[in-house]
């Protein structure tokens, strides 16, 4: 009996009137966990009942603690008939299972009903007492931390980045079970919500087990998705990156202990986790052959689960010795060799991270992606999800081989997605092939010497652009030049990646959001024929999306794409492609050439004139864009570069393939072959359309910037004002005479109008940048296109932005404020490697004491940050915002970014992963589809905020709306929507507050100040 869950129901408020006669409600509460149920007394005739219940205690396995949600049902007591349900609250108690996160969940939760929405609130207190369990074959993985953030979380340091973890579980969808025909929509929705909650808990537990096997203690970049396969079932799958994280300082140690009498107990299971420091001292024995067997009845995991990821690596002692400071070449080889060996043992050397500790990313090869079209069949046995597993394994294998072809041994910024229509499913995976520094992949101590030299040799700001593959044996026709930054290594002319822009990359000017949008009609077909049709279309779509991206990039005068995400969605009669990325001008890469237009019929005079007119327009646009995005690279004569510039060629950095259910793998080379680069041939109206569409993209109004990466290159001075939002649009296509052109235009207009609306709505925030703009497109019905956008608008200080000459000090300050942990982390690692050439020798002691002295970390760290940045004080002050006036509801910020501008994240409280269904049978009365969905999304936000506040947090970072499935039936006055959101609940402290504390009373306990108000009931 390893855990005791304690729940107290305090009070309710704003309950709905359940008894029309008295205009009151006789409410009571059922608290259910697993198969145990407790009830409170009935609080008669009150809309604001005070139950003040005793502590309900559940004695449960920690396995159940991980899987099961706590289910709280509020009901209206009825003496004569059945009690009416008012609504439910599901609470994921996972954050209470690891010691560094929340110690208590306490607060007001919205009472949610899938038919009526939020109906009042309930105040609940939840605690967990965990007992030590030394069972080696345990099924639980309590203590493993989960983060949605796709970088090393701000107050942690990565000791080892182990690598890829994945798992999936399948089940029958309750919506499609026979019983659904006789039960109410409410019962069906609740069954579904509960099942998905259970499945995600189980999935998380299993992933946790894998992490423990790998000797990690955390999963970073955790991405969990649902595939609603309809008749054939429900798949919940997750991927992530296993890491061993070390807390830089532990604010938990000085959190008010009053909340947690169980704290001592809770630390015990965590101690069981390998302590990274002690563990790293000795060479670990190769444990990788050891297979951990699970009790077969419960294990849904693949047979190969234990070999997915290596457990430890044989240390390469002495590898680095002897190869003293030489040119990059031998080092590269050495590095490759070393990394190779480190990664070879992994089945999939994939990383879901998009931002990395300094020095981790050595070279970037380019985007690798794979897609596969599958026919769904019923999952007969939920305990054996092999089919789905095999599908993904196949795709991952492809990705791996693509990466190899690019001379890379790893894939970073890796993600997976699906698009389902009826019984056809497109599985997609993509990532960025890369060469990594092995330091973080294994115990780093022995490599210290080599690393240091590598770092010395790698020029800052351009190293990752250098090609990882062999110049003479290139995987595709490419045009290489010498790096414009260091002049030593070769770089490609264009670089596409799925990762965030590395912090140290040298960028000229600002970046911008670049989208490629595409529709293709498809004949309606059944099963196999349908899948074949789709597979045949896919290569053409990929090709066109890629061409569009390339053209738009050129048009912007830029040479690299970051955060590239290509989504292909399948509908009954069409396929949609939407690619989003952030274009930038990398200083290391050559200046992009312009776009040349060539006509096919050179004899026609008027045609000629038209062409030249178009050409002029394009050239003007490029010039305008260069000015708009402040792209003025330093002039460079060709002699300096030395290498003769061959015929410029457009070529692709994408390698990808499609495969149909027959497992046929076709590799597609997207390079334009022998065609001259950047030449658009206008030989028919189609091409004409293409050129036109290129020019129709309107730049955002002045004062606005947009990107889909974490931060906007070229903007550093964020203020603390942020606004996260979700916008959804559905358009109905007129079914008459649908052509590809008309479709494309409709889709393009839809996206452009949506962006325009956003700019208009957020105009009061100017100057501002839309960051992490995330578009998803789906085709819910025949003639419907749905586009969902989630992003965050952040204002920045215009005055500072105008100072074009940014001193290095300012730059480092910026890094300190946004990625301050990384800045600190770096010297920390260096000193642990005991290197003489320490950049901040006097700070060393201080830093060490800061990390070890858990009493006052936040304040002390603030001091060190300021030391590192001479201009610190003034700027911090500038950024400070007036504190919000007293409000009864604490403000919870939400952002898709991993940080909060102008603030410091002091604590991660756990992962938020919520799934909601809302249904209505009175669509018109609720304001039509817009009213219905507007209210639902607002409710989802409210529930996320309430959970975060109850955990003691004041923000959600890395927030993502993973799914928003909307179905309507206006004739029946019905609609249904499913939403899945996730993120990391955190506590943040404003830098301005930190500063006050650090200057006035350095030992003050500042951390809980912001959280305290919300923790208490």
């Amino acid at each position, binding site marked *: 009996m390893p855990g005791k869950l304690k729940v107290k129901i305090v009070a309710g408020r704003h309950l709905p009137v359940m008894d029309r006669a008295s205009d009151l409600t006789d409410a009571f509460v059922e608290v259910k966990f697993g198969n145990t149920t407790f009830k409170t007394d009935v609080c008669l005739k009150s809309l604001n009942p005070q139950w003040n219940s005793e502590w309900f205690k559940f004695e449960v396995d920690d396995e159940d603690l991980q899987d099961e949600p706590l289910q709280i049902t509020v009901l209206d007591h009825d003496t004569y008939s059945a009690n009416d349900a008012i609504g439910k609250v599901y609470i994921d108690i996972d954050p209470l299972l690891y010691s560094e996160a929340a110690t208590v969940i306490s607060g007001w939760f919205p009472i949610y009903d899938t038919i009526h929405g939020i109906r009042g609130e309930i105040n609940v207190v939840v605690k967990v007492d965990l007992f030590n369990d030394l069972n080696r074959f345990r099924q639980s993985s309590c203590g493993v931390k989960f983060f949605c953030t796709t970088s090393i979380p701000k107050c942690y340091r990565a000791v080892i980045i182990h690598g890829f973890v994945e798992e999936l579980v399948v089940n029958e969808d309750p919506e499609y079970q026979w019983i659904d025909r006789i039960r109410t929509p409410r019962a069906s929705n609740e069954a579904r919500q509960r099942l998905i909650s259970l499945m995600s808990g189980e999935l998380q537990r299993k992933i946790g087990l894998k992490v423990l096997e790998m000797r990690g203690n955390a999963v970073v970049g955790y991405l969990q998705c649902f595939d609603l396969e309809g008749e054939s079932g429900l798949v919940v799958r997750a991927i992530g990156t296993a890491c061993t994280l070390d807390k830089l300082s532990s604010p938990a140690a000085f959190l008010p202990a009053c909340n947690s009498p169980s704290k001592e107990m809770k630390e015990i299971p965590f101690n069981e986790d390998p302590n990274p420091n002690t563990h790293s001292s000795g060479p670990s024995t190769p444990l990788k052959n050891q297979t951990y067997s699970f009790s077969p009845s419960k294990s849904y995991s693949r047979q190969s689960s234990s070999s997915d990821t290596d457990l430890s690596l044989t240390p390469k002692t002495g590898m680095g010795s002897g190869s003293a400071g030489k040119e990059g070449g031998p080092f590269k080889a050495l590095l490759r060799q070393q990394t190779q060996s480190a990664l070879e043992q992994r089945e999939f050397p994939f990383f879901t991270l998009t931002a990395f500790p300094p020095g981790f990313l050595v070279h970037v090869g380019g985007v690798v992606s794979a897609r596969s079209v599958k026919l769904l069949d019923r999952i007969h046995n939920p305990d054996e999800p092999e089919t789905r597993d095999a599908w993904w394994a196949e795709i991952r294998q492809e990705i791996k081989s693509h990466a190899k072809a690019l001379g890379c041994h790893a894939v970073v910024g890796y993600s997976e997605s699906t698009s389902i229509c009826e019984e056809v499913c497109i599985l997609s995976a993509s990532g960025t092939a890369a060469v990594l520094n092995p330091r973080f992949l294994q115990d780093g101590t022995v490599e210290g010497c080599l690393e240091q030299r590598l770092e010395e040799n790698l020029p800052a700001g351009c190293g990752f652009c250098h090609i990882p593959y062999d110049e003479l044996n290139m995987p595709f026709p490419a045009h290489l030049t010498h790096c414009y930054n260091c002049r030593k290594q070769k770089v490609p002319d264009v670089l596409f990646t799925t990762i965030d822009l590395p912090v140290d990359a040298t960028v000229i000017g600002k970046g911008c959001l670049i989208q490629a949008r595409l529709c293709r009609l498809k004949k309606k077909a059944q099963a196999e024929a349908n899948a074949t049709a789709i597979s045949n279309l896919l290569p053409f779509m990929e090709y066109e999306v890629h061409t569009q991206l390339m053209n738009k990039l050129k048009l912007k005068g830029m040479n690299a794409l970051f955060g590239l995400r290509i989504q292909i969605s399948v509908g009954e009669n069409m396929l949609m492609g939407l690619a989003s990325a952030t274009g930038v001008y990398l200083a290391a890469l050559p200046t992009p050439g312009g776009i040349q237009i060539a006509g096919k019929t050179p004899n026609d005079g008027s045609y000629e004139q038209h062409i030249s007119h178009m050409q002029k327009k394009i050239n003007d646009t490029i010039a305008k864009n260069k000015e708009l995005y402040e792209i003025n690279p330093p002039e460079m004569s060709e002699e300096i570069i030395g290498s003769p510039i061959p015929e410029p060629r457009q070529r692709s950095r994408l390698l990808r393939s499609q495969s149909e259910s027959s497992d046929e793998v076709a590799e597609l080379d997207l390079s334009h072959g022998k065609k001259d680069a950047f030449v658009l041939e206008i030989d028919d109206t189609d091409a004409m359309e293409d050129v036109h569409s290129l020019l129709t993209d309107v730049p955002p109004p002045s004062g606005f910037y947009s990107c889909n990466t974490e931060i906007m290159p070229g903007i550093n001075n964020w203020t603390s004002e942020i606004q996260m939002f979700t916008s959804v649009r559905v358009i109905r296509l007129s079914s008459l005479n649908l052509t590809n052109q008309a479709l494309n235009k409709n889709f393009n207009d839809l996206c452009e109008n949506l962006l325009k609306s956003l700019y208009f709505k957020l105009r009061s925030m100017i100057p501002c940048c839309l960051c992490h703009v995330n578009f998803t497109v789906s085709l819910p019905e025949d003639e419907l296109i749905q586009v969902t956008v989630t992003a965050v608008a952040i204002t920045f200080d215009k005055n500072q932005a105008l100072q074009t000459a940014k001193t290095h000090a300012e730059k480092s300050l910026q890094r300190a404020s946004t990625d301050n942990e990384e800045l600190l982390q770096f010297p920390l690692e260096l000193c642990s490697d005991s290197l003489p050439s320490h950049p901040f020798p006097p700070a060393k002691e201080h830093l060490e004491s800061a990390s070890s002295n858990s009493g006052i970390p936040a304040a002390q760290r603030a001091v060190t940050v300021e030391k590192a940045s001479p201009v610190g004080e003034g700027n911090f002050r500038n950024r400070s915002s007036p504190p*919000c006036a007293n409000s009864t509801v604490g403000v919870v910020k939400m952002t898709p970014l991993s940080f909060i501008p102008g603030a410091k994240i002091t604590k991660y409280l756990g992962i938020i992963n919520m799934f909601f269904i809302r249904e209505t049978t009175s669509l018109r009365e609720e304001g039509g589809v817009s009213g219905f969905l507007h209210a639902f999304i607002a*409710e989802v936000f409210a529930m996320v905020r309430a959970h975060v506040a109850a955990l003691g947090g004041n923000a959600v970072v890395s927030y993502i709306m993973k799914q928003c499935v909307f179905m309507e039936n206006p004739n029946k006055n019905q609609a249904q929507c499913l939403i899945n959101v996730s993120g990391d609940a955190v506590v943040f402290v404003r830098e301005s507050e930190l500063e006050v504390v650090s200057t006035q009373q350095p030992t003050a306990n500042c951390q809980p100040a912001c959280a305290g108000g919300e923790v208490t009931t």
Partner: protein
Amino acid sequence: MTSELDIFVGNTTLIDEDVYRLWLDGYSVSDAVALRVRSGILEQTGATAAVLQSDTMDHYRTFHMLERLLHAPPKLLHQLIFQIPPSRQALLIERYYAFDEAFVREVLGKKLSKGTKKDLDDISTKTGITLKSCRRQFDNFKRVFKVVEEMRGSLVDNIQQHFLLSDRLARDYAAIVFFANNRFETGKKKLQYLSFGDFAFCAELMIQNWTLGAVDSQVDDMDMDLDKEFLQDLKELKVLVADKDLLDLHKSLVCTALRGKLGVFSEMEANFKNLSRGLVNVAAKLTHTKDVRDLFVDLVEKFIEPCRSDHWPLNDVRLFLNQYSASVHSLDGFRHQALWDRYMGTLRGCLLRLYHD
């Protein structure tokens, strides 16, 4: 291509003050869009009409969802669905409960019943305020009335506590509630020259001095109902005009004191008895509910109009009323000095406020 669904939801609820104003004023989405276009917003922002339409719809939807909460403002503060900064919450509430002068003059003193609600059409036509806005304002009056009636304690405090209004607005609502409760007639043609502010001023004075709350702060409706006992007692003042000697004495005292100080002395002297009779008879009649309702009509008829026809300057009216009230203290045969002060103190304030063109 038609837009089936188009929404924008922010973590912090976006409130556009201009659109809120249009919504409160009861404009339809298309009217609001037209008005916004006229304001030149398209030129300023480079947006298209479609964008404006979508934006307006979105805000209207938000306001519609917020309206339920605005009916009980403390709910807006405690709810979790819309994250709105406190300053914005205050703005939402204050603007929602704000009312139009033209509208309030139409319903002031009327029973806040279904019957009156039916007349809103006419009021809308007459004032040019949209019917929707009239309904909102009327419902606000009624809602506040329902909540605070039969409540203990200060009327203004109760309103402020339950509707979180600013002090000024809460005082205005207190006046509206007070007038509605006592059904003072304000709609007569004679009273048309008076503003809501004039009545609100009088209401405040009457609440302070003439209600139950003026003597006892522990009863229900203390600020809403006039002190019945006090009204009953007012009959005693009749002696001031019924007793000829007393009336003459009063007149001579006032005339002696004001001789040479008043520009309209001769008119005052000639009219003294009429004016005094008017003021005292108003007091004596207040035992009847109907006469209470006609209080303002009577005051205007019996005092303000005669003075105005003789072109009394406001300062002369003030000097006269001061002397008129004070002189009573020197009348030896008169025993109801305290009653007289409670009555006249308030009445003097009211009359001075009401005396204008």
